[in-house]
């Protein structure tokens, strides 16, 4: 079991950040399988199991950026919560804004964690450790 990689879904349009996430996860020493989706509409299609995503297994964790092309992160999160298969998947919301937007609270879309993308490299790499701890604490999810 331990040899099986953790499935992580990263919804992020900024390839520079995708690179840094991959770096952070690697430096945290995680055995992971990263699925990257670059816009909101594609993310919703993934959740709904449409097209090429039909039959994809539910990831162990999702990292969702709020500002996305097409549908934004909040709409994606709504789709996740509304889909039974994905409803219990832990979702980490990231943003460069210092405070989570009011809409998250209004819609009662409490994410598992809200992370501000830090400008400092070391801080960013520490996100990998945070995610690893989350996965270890709740292996069932």
């Amino acid at each position, binding site marked *: 079991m331990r040899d099986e990689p953790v499935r992580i879904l990263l919804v992020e349009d*900024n390839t*520079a950040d995708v690179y*840094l996430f991959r*770096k952070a996860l690697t430096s945290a020493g995680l055995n992971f399988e990263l699925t990257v989706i670059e816009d909101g509409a594609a993310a919703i299609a993934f959740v709904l199991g449409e097209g090429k995503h039909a039959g994809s297994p539910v990831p162990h964790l999702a990292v969702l950026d709020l500002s996305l092309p097409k549908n934004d992160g909040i709409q994606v999160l709504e789709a996740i919560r509304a889909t039974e298969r994905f409803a219990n998947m832990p979702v980490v919301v990231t943003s*460069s*804004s210092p405070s989570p937007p009011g809409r998250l609270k209004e819609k009662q879309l409490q994410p598992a964690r809200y992370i501000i*993308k*830090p*400008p*400092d*490299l*070391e801080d*960013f790499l520490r996100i990998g450790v945070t995610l690893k701890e989350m996965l270890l604490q709740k292996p069932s999810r």
Partner: protein
Amino acid sequence: MRAENSERIERQRFETTLASIGDAVIATDTQGRVTFANRIALSLLQRPEAEVTGKPLDGVFHIINEITRAAVESPVTRVLREGTNAGLANHTVLIAADGTEVPIDDSAAPIRSGADAMQGSVLVFRDITERRRAETASRLLAAVVESSEDAIITKDLNGALTSWNRGAERMYGYTAEEIIGQPVSVLAPDRPNEMTETLERIKRGERVEHYRTIRRTKAGKPFHTSLTISPLRDANGQITGASTIGRDITAEVRAQEEIAERRERLRVTLGSIGDAVMATDTQGRVTYLNPVAERLTGWTSEEAAGRPIEDVFAIINEESRQTVENPVARVLREGKVVGLANHTLLISRDGKELAIDDSGAPIQDVQGEMMGVVLTFRDISEKRAAEKLSALQTAELRKQSRLLERVHCFVRDLDDRIVFWNRAAADLYGFSAGEAIGQVSHTLLKTVFPAPLAGIQSQLAAAGYWDGELVHTVRGGGQICVASHWTLYKDSDDQPIAILEVNLDITGRKQAEEELRVANRALARANEDLNQFAFAASHDLQEPLRMITSYSQLLMKGYRGQLDGEAATCIEFITEGTKRMRELLADLLAYTQVTGDGQEVVAPVDLNDVFHAAVENCKAAIDEAKASVTSDRLPAVQGYEPHFVQLFQNLVSNALKYRSEQPPRIHVSAAMQNSLWRIAVNDNGIGIAPEYHRQIFGVFKRLHGKVIPGTGIGLAICQRVVERYGGQIWVESQVGQGATFEFTLPVVEGATPHEG
């Protein structure tokens, strides 16, 4: 002898008898000669005995027919010729010796001695003048009674009717046959007492004259009658009954009632109308005043009656004060309706003067004959006073025309009709005074009011003036906006008489105001756009900046030891630049977030708490500088707490940054001044030259370059916070003498200020 003697005695007796009887007697012999005439006969013949005795009768007894005036044969002639008695024809008149004529009634008879021999004749006649007169009078009376229109009836003392003329038949409907013998009470079955009383009075010999009562006809119809009742007496003066002359006065009574009714109606009408009414006869003497006329003239109708109209209705011309011709006199002269000249004053009995308006008209009877004059007038003092006052005021306004030429104004009466219109108003509205005067101003100018007119008018009545903005339409249809001031004119009795409306054309000002509003809205929108742009820019710029930072660090980390010195220096500069840019963006973001859009929750904020939070945030720098930061008790203000924390924090960190050689001493104090809190942050730092006191509050303004770190936005944020809450911020400082930053904040209503 004996026989002769006895004959003589016989003759004596005969003559004595003849002499003593009342009729005239003449005896003749068979030849027609007079043998004897008694005294009455001689008296009627107007002759002495000597001229008669022994003479032929025809010589002294001349008779003629009264109607034909022809001689009539003497009855003696006929007796002697025919031997029988002869009566005289009617209408025989005896002509006496002196020519006088006497109507007579006569007869003649033969005188016989023994059985057959006629001895002579005897003529008997009498004067019937008296009888004829009585007969004539009686016939006349009967004719009068019969032909009279009046009912003439008689009754006996028991009240039974005894005679009934044709007038009575016509009036009552009973014929004489059916009514005579009936009791008089059938003529008034409902008034038995009246009959009895009248009869009692008659029995006492009294006369009842023109007694008005009601009688009933045979058909039962009542009618008004006037009765004159007199006692009837017999030859001995004994009262035997009563005669009644009755006249039907129903029509007369009706006419009187109608007149009375008409008079009453007229009296009520004249008494109730608002105008004064007087009447005179054709001599111009007063006959009547109605109550209004009594009040205005001061004369009662009774007192004035019979006086010349000029006494009661004295009028003069208002200006000349000369007596003017009385309209009554003119009506009497011209016979037609006349109106009064203008400006007439009535002088009342007690000398009061009243402006009146009057007219006179002839009163004519049915034939069109003038019977008098009726004069109608009314008190127009109030109306005249209003005219006079507004004329006065108009004159006053004209006097001030030089002043008024620049002001658009007009005067209107209480019905809003324009009575004065100045030249400026004519220029503004395009209507000349001639066109405007008499018009209702609101109609002429199509006035649009800011509130219902009734409300404006009651305000005007209460306060005496009204101010507001109106929209008027000028000639040609253009609309203008005016600032309108209305003043209510009152007379000496405090009664409103007119309104002065002064209008100031503010169309241009209103347009400018509107343009300013539009510009302000545009500016506010632009400001908001700029703020949003600054927010978005500072926010979104963080993203690529983070990339540069992260990747330059990644480069340093990944190629540690592999980069030469110059490459390492380059990367260091990249890192430095991005760090500085990050600070600038953060401050810019903070600055844009202090906006006036009011989205933050506004609540009472205790500045003591704010001070402690700010000190806490600056703790590292305070410790590092070994600074002393203190404060007095501070008040509570209204606002969004983070704004004030930022304000205090920026001022404290500023004081720390620009410190002098000596350890910094920073003190915050508060005082109330002009209903504002005045808060001062004093330091002992390097101070600021006065020429920079203003520009230090500008965005990104820095005085000291890179010697002292900073973005130059801190004081700009402070100013923005203070101004957002309606305060002001400034600095008092000299180089080398420290600085005191002071700002004001509004006092919170109801909040208890802290001491100190």
